């Protein structure tokens, strides 16, 4: 399973929505696509799902060019882009059945799949109703069921928790965790904590360019400590630390809990005023956005 973007550029008139993007995503797991509104996240996903065509460059799904061979490429992909609507005079069941046929899912597999999906996405209650009567959340759940119907190798999700209540959000996140164990999930989200919780890799995109691309392990949770004094820290519970005038950023050994690290620091004589989690990903995100803004 692979999504490969090669010199991918998309322009709308004079506006460059995506600028020479090169990404290679392989294997199972979840890749988070982060960025502010208008950064180019959805454009990227639209290009990967044949909703729009690139101005130049290409997207390949399992080595198949999406723009040139959409029917072949999309066989491997299930997607939920923006907030899709369905044909209002068809029921959820009819939409699922139609999708199953178009995806070429054998009838027995379809029946087994759809039963599970209805339970997982919680659509059983309203799936017989015409989709024109659905609320935003109901449509979102059905769209998710449509996306993962048939167990596609690659699942592309654009803000899948949008419009859902907290329980719905929780269910969907659990589902994404489950799917990403064996499938490749490309997840676009505004929410850094969502990306942190679900993804193994984070790509930050801003103004059509990739600002940051790293494995989530590299975006460890760190501790930010404000202290009255400064000491030389020596502890086997700490891997690394940086100190400036205002605070100390500590990268702790994963085998230890936060309180154990803090206990050590107190024992060593550090007069701690305040401790908080330091989100490296969030800071990277903010610095990229700010940097771009300062160029304006």
């Amino acid at each position, binding site marked *: 399973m692979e999504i490969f973007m090669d010199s991918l550029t998309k322009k709308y008139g004079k506006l460059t929505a995506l600028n020479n993007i090169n990404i290679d995503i392989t294997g199972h797991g979840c890749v988070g696509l982060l960025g502010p509104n208008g950064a180019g996240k959805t454009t990227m996903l639209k290009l990967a799902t044949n*909703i729009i065509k690139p101005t130049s460059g290409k997207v390949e799904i399992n080595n198949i060019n999406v723009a040139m061979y959409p029917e072949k490429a999309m066989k491997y992909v299930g997607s939920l882009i923006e907030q899709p609507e369905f044909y209002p005079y068809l029921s959820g069941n009819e939409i699922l059945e139609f999708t199953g046929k178009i995806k070429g899912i054998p009838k027995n597999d379809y029946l087994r799949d759809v039963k599970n999906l209805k339970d997982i996405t919680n659509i059983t209650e309203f799936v017989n109703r015409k989709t024109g009567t659905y609320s935003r959340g109901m449509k979102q759940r059905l769209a998710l069921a449509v996306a993962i119907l048939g167990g596609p190798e690659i699942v592309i999700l654009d803000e899948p928790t949008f419009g859902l209540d907290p329980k719905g959000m929780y269910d969907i996140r659990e589902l994404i965790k489950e799917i990403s164990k064996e499938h490749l999930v490309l997840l676009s989200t505004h929410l850094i904590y969502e990306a942190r919780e679900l993804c193994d890799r984070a790509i930050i995109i801003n103004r059509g360019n990739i600002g940051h691309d790293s494995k989530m392990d590299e975006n460890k949770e760190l501790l930010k400590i404000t202290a009255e004094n400064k000491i030389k820290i020596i502890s086997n519970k700490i891997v690394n630390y940086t100190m400036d005038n205002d605070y100390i950023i500590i990268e702790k050994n994963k085998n230890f809990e936060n309180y154990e690290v803090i206990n050590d620091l107190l024992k060593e004589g550090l007069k701690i005023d305040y401790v908080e989690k330091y989100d490296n990903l969030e800071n990277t995100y903010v610095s990229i956005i700010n940097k771009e803004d300062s160029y304006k």
Partner: protein
Amino acid sequence: MSKLSTIYLQYIKNYYRSKSFYLMLFLIIVISVMMTYFSLKYVNDLPRFLGSTSLPPALKETLFYFLWTFVLANIPVFASVFFGSPALSSEIENKTAYYIFPLPINRYKLYIGKYLAAVTVTLIIIAIYTVFELGTLGFLFKNLPSIDFYYSLGLLVLFILSIMSITFMISAIFNKNTYAYISVFIIYYIVFEAGSLIIELLYKVTPTYLLNEAATIIDRVYMNINTTDFLAKPSISPAPFSDIVLAMLVMIIYLVISFIIGMFLFERKEVS
């Protein structure tokens, strides 16, 4: 092929459950009932309206078929506006494109499937009218329809294919249903109808290459009375075979060219 039939059946389902279909159904039933009423009421008065004391029965029957078909020939335009105008633009405006475009199916199959579904529901509407027509005229004249009826029906189907193809092409241009509706009306009633009238009045030639002119063949197979053509002399004889061939050719050209352009536009359609 199976994907195409799946698409076709899906869109048929969505069409026949839509408000547009029921509105067209209502209109066609009202028109059919009115035509039936007028046929039954004025069957013996028709010669008087034409300034004659009597007409030969065969001519009277042909005249009634002509009148029924004259009304029928206008219905595909309305049906194409109802079913064709929003067909592709609605995928963008209603955001169903986000669902349908990423599915593993080529867009030309979506286009063809939806086009065939729109043609089918139009034929259903036409069939209802035709049943009224055959019932009423069969009851009045106690005869089976002549061969002209089948010619007329065949030409009508060709006209439906053609006008629906043009409508789909226009729908593929726009992202808003309203623009598509308005454009279809403008093209048919201003570009074709008014254009035809202006060309005839100014240049004294019949623009046989316009689709509305070609469509007059649908009723002219009974009697060569072209209500849109001031230059032609009306005749109670059927239109000559050469006129039928020419009209068919014009309709086929419109059908093929607009179909190719429409499919090309839809293939490049973007949801932005």
